[in-house]
């Protein structure tokens, strides 16, 4: 089994480490751990901020869509009023008169029973 930190040549032979490498190893290890921790914290902060920003952005987007929805509802209500105004019998009668139409003098009523009897 190979020992830890054992260096090897290109051909795979073990290379003896120099004595001062022990002190440097500790520093490197500390540097790596601290750097990793900083990176992890940084990533966590970035993640949190991005989430918070995303939620805030979505919130404002929701508000914008809500106001669009409210405006569409308002327009819909106005259109319903306009539709009711156009459907008003008084308006239709006035329009019919303007077009020169007149009321039917008499409405013939056909008795249903004799027709049904003939069938």
């Amino acid at each position, binding site marked *: 089994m190979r020992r830890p930190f054992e260096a090897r040549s290109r051909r795979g032979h073990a290379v003896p480490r120099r004595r001062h490498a022990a002190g440097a190893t500790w520093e490197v290890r500390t540097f790596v751990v601290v750097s990793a921790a900083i990176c992890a914290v940084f990533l966590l902060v970035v993640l949190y901020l991005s989430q*918070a920003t995303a939620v805030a*952005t979505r919130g404002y987007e929701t508000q914008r869509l809500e106001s669009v929805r409210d405006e569409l509802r308002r327009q819909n209500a106005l259109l319903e009023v306009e539709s*009711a105004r156009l459907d008003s019998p*008084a308006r239709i*009668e006035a329009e019919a008169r303007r077009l020169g139409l007149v009321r039917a003098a008499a409405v013939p*009523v056909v008795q249903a029973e004799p027709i049904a009897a003939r069938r």
Partner: protein
Amino acid sequence: MTEGISPSRLRVLFALFAVATLLLSLRVGYWQTIGRTALLEGATDQLRSELVVEAQRGVIRDRSGAVLATTVDLRSLYAIPKRIADHADAAAKLAPVLATPAATIRAALDSGAEWLYLKRRLPEPVARAVEALAITGLGFEPEPKRLYPNDALAAHVLGFVNDDGVGQYGVEGAYDKVLRGVPGSLIVERDPKDRELALGLRTAIAPKNGADLMLTIDLVVQTAAESALRRAIEREKATSGSIIVLDPRDGAILALASAPTFDPARVASADPEALRDRAVSWSYEPGSTMKAVTIAAGIDTGVVTPTTTYEDKGYAIIGGRRLNNAQGKVYGTTTVTQILERSANAGAVFVASKLGQDPLYQYLRAFGFGSPTGIDLASEASGAVRPLAQWYPVDVGTIAFGQGIAVTPLQLAMAYSAIANGGTLYRPYVVAATRDADGEHRTAPAAVRSPITPATADTLRTMLVSTVDRGIAHGATLPGYSVAGKTGTAQIPSDDGRYLDDAYISSFAGFVPASDPRFVVVIVIERPQTKLLGTITAMDAFHDLAIDVLRNARVQPDRP
């Protein structure tokens, strides 16, 4: 460097710093403990806003679902004058769009106000036109507005909503609590731009919107009734009038027209007298239309039959007073049916005399005169039937032909409904159903009592048909349909208790088709120009209206 500074100075300096540090520490300690709550509240107040979320007022629809009244947010135009670069230019651009003089707008902008409304609740096309001007310093704010798509149609049924959002008169007044709903609230935290914070506090209590009302009113019948009333009033140059159309089978009001009228959306400019509903909130002496009630009482008690005769001398004497027929006509031997056909006052006195004052009073009350009908509209009048103890002997005679008694057109319509439907007096109603979040609640027709038997009602129907076919109400005949009805002409009492010489109230009350009544119609015209001939106009109005109503309801003719 410190060699020049004396130790005593250093001590003083140290003491000052120490005291300052102590004071600051105490101050910080205070805000962190005792003053913490106030500080937090102050900070929260800057962020938090509490809003009242208004409930949507219910929609009012006719029996077919057509919108009669609804609430829509319209845009109100406000200005922040400091932000408007050129007041004169802005006023000049706005003037033609707002239909307001430029000088008025300029004066408002120059008034020194920091914020002001230039015009509230603009029609949408006007709001869009203002928007297109893109003037910096102008803005819009939505404000609810009650809209009535049919303008003044059915104004007295609907009533109106005042500037405080409170319903008044008509259905808006009677059903205000139902229509209004319950407002909610919204507590949110906002950023400096007044936007809601997405991650902030949000507490909402949803408003409970008002219920929608489905009326018994038929838009087509209402339009026809108002049109007929308008023509009658124009023809007679009358001061006022009213028309009621109702279904005698359950008391549902199909149309209720009153003139003069008003536009519910512009009440501020309306004549106060126009607000009074003359079909419900106004009473008058009905005249001869009341003879049908007198004779119904006589037949129901059995004191007379349709063929009972009396000798008509052109007048009757009762309580020492002489009561004449209209225009002093003398009819000779007359049957009770002919009393209605000829509208003989002396004949009505004859029947009332045989009946007696106590039974006559009881029948008047049983038919609903002298007390409100209970219709679900605001401000109903009760009419006036004096207590029996206050009757003079002559009152039996005058009340028999409709003088000395005051009724509302609605009371008269309900009495004729009882005759039309076989003797049942219903409580009239205009709201067929309410719709809210819990579903639909329909109004059940309410029978109040039966003032006469079905046999009496049937007999009266036949007599009233005869009155139209062969009698004084012949102007009300319709091709293809049997009509039952009676005209009425009454004098108007003056302030001193006497009757005015040349002022009358003309009316017609009837139902159609008489064989299976679907519509009861009462038409009243106050002070017609043609005076005694005002009933002809009332019958013409009935004729035109009945044709429209029967066509609309596709009622099959009952006569060849």
